[in-house]
C-alpha cells in the first residue's frame, strides 16, 4: 500500500504529469483548508503537500510566510494539523506532510513519525533537513514505511546529487530556482539539464517545484522529462486576496487547478 507509487503508475497509464499542490493547513482556518483541498483534488490535483505552519519558514517567500502567520495567529497547532490530515482520508490521495524541522524536533522525531503514519499520510518533506542532517533518521523513517522526500537544487553538486538520489524515496523534489517559494520562475537550461542528470542516474519520479504558477510552466517542465510539478503559493495568492471570505475565491482556484492539470497532461503527451 504505497499510495505515492500507485499514483505515479496510474498517472503513467493515463499519460499525465503529476499535479501536486502545497497548502498550509489552518490558513485562514481549518474548515477552509479542508474545503480547499477538496476543491483542488476535484479539479485535477493528484497529491497534496500538507503544510504544518511554522513561525519562521525560511524557505518560504512572502505568500507562504503570511499563510503561516495567519494560521498561527488563528491558533493552529501541529496536533490540529495531524487531526486535519485524518479528515482527508476519504479523498484517497497521497498526502505528504511538510513542515520545518523544529516541529518534529520538539515533539520528538519518532513520535512525530508515528503520528503522521497514523493519519495515513505517505511521507514527509522537511525543507531545512538536508541529507546530512537527515541521515540519523533514515532508517527510522524507512522502518515506519514512510517516505522522506528529499530535495535537490540547481546549486547541488554532482557528488551530492548522487548521494541524495541513493537515499531518495517516493519522488525527488527538484527546487527549480535559487530562492524561496513563490519566487518568479524563469525556466533556464540548468533545470532542464538537472532533470536529464537525474534521469540518467535514477528511475525515481521527479517533481519540480518553486515558482510554478501557469499551465505553460507545467507543460514545459514535464515535456522536458519531469514527472510532475508542485505548486503552492499560486493557489494561496488567490484566496489571500479575499480573506474575509476566501470561499469566494475557490472558483478561481479550481479554474487554475484545472489549467495546471492540463499543462501537466500536455507536457506529458509532448514527451511521447
Amino acid at each position, binding site marked *: 500500500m504505497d499510495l505515492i507509487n500507485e499514483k505515479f503508475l496510474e498517472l503513467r497509464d493515463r499519460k499525465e504529469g503529476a499535479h501536486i499542490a502545497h497548502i498550509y493547513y489552518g490558513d485562514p482556518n481549518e474548515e477552509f483548508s479542508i474545503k480547499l483541498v477538496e476543491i483542488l483534488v476535484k479539479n485535477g490535483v493528484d497529491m497534496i503537500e500538507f503544510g504544518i505552519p511554522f513561525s519562521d519558514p*525560511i*524557505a518560504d517567500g512572502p505568500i507562504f510566510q503570511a499563510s503561516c502567520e495567519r494560521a498561527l495567529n488563528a491558533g493552529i497547532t501541529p496536533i490540529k494539523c495531524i487531526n486535519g490530515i485524518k479528515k482527508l482520508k476519504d479523498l484517497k490521495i497521497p498526502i505528504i506532510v511538510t513542515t520545518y524541522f523544529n516541529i518534529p524536533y520538539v515533539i520528538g522525531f519518532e513520535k512525530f513519525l508515528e503520528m503522521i503514519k497514523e493519519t495515513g499520510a505517505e511521507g514527509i518533506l522537511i525543507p*531545512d533537513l538536508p541529507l546530512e542532517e537527515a541521515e540519523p533518521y533514515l532508517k527510522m523513517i524507512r522502518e515506519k514505511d514512510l517516505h522522506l522526500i528529499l530535495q535537490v*537544487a540547481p546549486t547541488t553538486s554532482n557528488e551530492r546529487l548522487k548521494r541524495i538520489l541513493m537515499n531518495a524515496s517516493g519522488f525527488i523534489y527538484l*527546487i527549480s530556482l535559487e530562492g524561496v517559494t513563490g519566487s518568479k520562475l524563469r525556466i533556464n537550461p540548468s533545470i532542464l539539464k538537472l532533470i536529464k542528470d537525474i534521469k540518467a542516474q535514477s528511475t525515481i519520479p521527479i517533481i519540480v517545484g518553486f515558482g510554478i504558477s501557469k499551465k505553460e510552466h507545467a507543460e514545459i517542465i514535464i515535456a522536458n522529462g519531469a514527472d510532475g510539478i508542485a505548486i503552492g503559493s499560486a493557489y494561496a495568492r488567490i484566496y489571500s486576496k479575499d480573506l474575509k471570505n476566501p470561499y469566494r475565491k475557490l472558483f478561481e482556484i479550481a479554474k487554475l487547478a484545472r489549467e495546471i492539470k492540463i499543462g501537466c497532461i500536455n507536457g506529458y503527451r509532448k514527451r511521447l
Partner: protein
Amino acid sequence: MENGKFGKYGGMFVSEVLIHALLELDEAFKKIYPTDEFQKEFHELLKDYGGRPTPLYYAKNFSKLVGFKVYLKREDLLCGGSHKLNNALGQALLAKKMGKKRLITETAAGQHGLATVMAGNICGLKTEIFMGIKDIERQALNVKKMELLGAKIKPIKTGAGVLKDAVSETLREWAACSRTTHYLMGSTVGPHPFPTIVATFQSVIGNEIKKQIFEKEGRLPNAIVCCGSGGSNALGAFKPFINEHGVRLYFVEGGGENLNAENSAAAFQIGSPCVLHGSIMQAIQDKWGQIKPSKTRAAGLNYPGRGPEISYLCEIGRVKACYAFDHEVFNAVKFICKTEGLIPALETAHAVAFVLNHPEEFHSDDIVIINFSGRGDKDIETILRFFYGFN
C-alpha cells in the same frame, strides 16, 4: 565540534539551495584562513583600521565600590564602537578572496551592520543590510551611519520587525544570490560553518585578554563576564579560557522586564533546544516548537536563540548562564558613567549589571574581567528616556 556540532547543538539545517554555499564557505575558510597572506592582511586591518589591541582597563573607581578588582576589556574602543568589527573584517576579507561581490547581513543594534559596511567598503564589496522596522526605529543613529557609509538598508516588516525576522529574511535573500553574495553572519549563530567562523574571528578578544592580564597581574583572572545573545563577544572572550578550569565564565542574557515568556530574552532561563536559523540551539519557543519573539530594551540582545557553542557550554556547566533585568541594566549604565566616565551599550551594561548585583559570585581577592563589548552612543535616547521620561 565534528561537522559543526557542539554536543547536540549546531548543524546545517537549511534548504538544499543553500548547502553548496555553506560547503563552499567551509572549504574556503579552512583553506584561506590559515594562510600567511590572510593572517597578515587580517591582523593588519584589525590593528591599523580597527585599533587592536583594545586596552584592558583597570577600573579603579568601579573596583573600589564593588570591593574586588574589575578590568574592562575595551571593545567599545574598536572602530565602529563594538566588537562586531573583528568578525566583519575577517568575513569580508574572506568573501573578497572567495570572489564574492556583495555582502548581505542582518542587524539589530546596528553595530554589526555598521561593522559590515565598514568592512565592505574597505574590501570593495557592496553591502545590503536587513533590519527589522522596529529596530530601525530604535537604533536610528546607527541606521543613519550605515546609510551615510553607503549601505542599502532593507526594512523587514514581517513578524515582529526585529532581529529574528531579519535573519530569516537574509537567509531567504541569500538563497537567491549565494553565488555572488556572502552572507556576513553577525554572531555565532546560523548553520555551520558560521558559528565556528565567527568565534574564530572573535577569539582575538580572549587571546589579548590572556596576554594583557598576565602582563598586569601575572596570573589568570578568576572570572570573565560577558553579555550576549548569539554569543559572539562572549565566545570571543571565553575561547582561550575554556580549558582553564580556574576561570569562571559568566554569560549574561537580556532578562527584559521579568522572566515571563512575553517579557524576556533569557533563553537559557525560559527556552529549550530548538532548530532555528539553520542550527540546533537553545531558544525561546512555545510547547509546539513555534519560536517566540524575545523582549529586551537592548536591541542587540533581542534574539530568541543562543548560538550552538554557547548553548553547549552552558549545558555542560562550563559557562554559567545568567541574566540582568532592564531596570538593573539602566542603573548599571549610570553607575559606570559616574565611576569611569564611560557610556556602555545597553547590551554591554548587562554584564556590568550582573557584576554589580551579584556580590555572592565574587570574592574580595578576585580579578574579574568584563568584556566591554560596545559603546552606548546608539542608545543615548533610550537611556535618557528611561531616566527622564522625555527625549
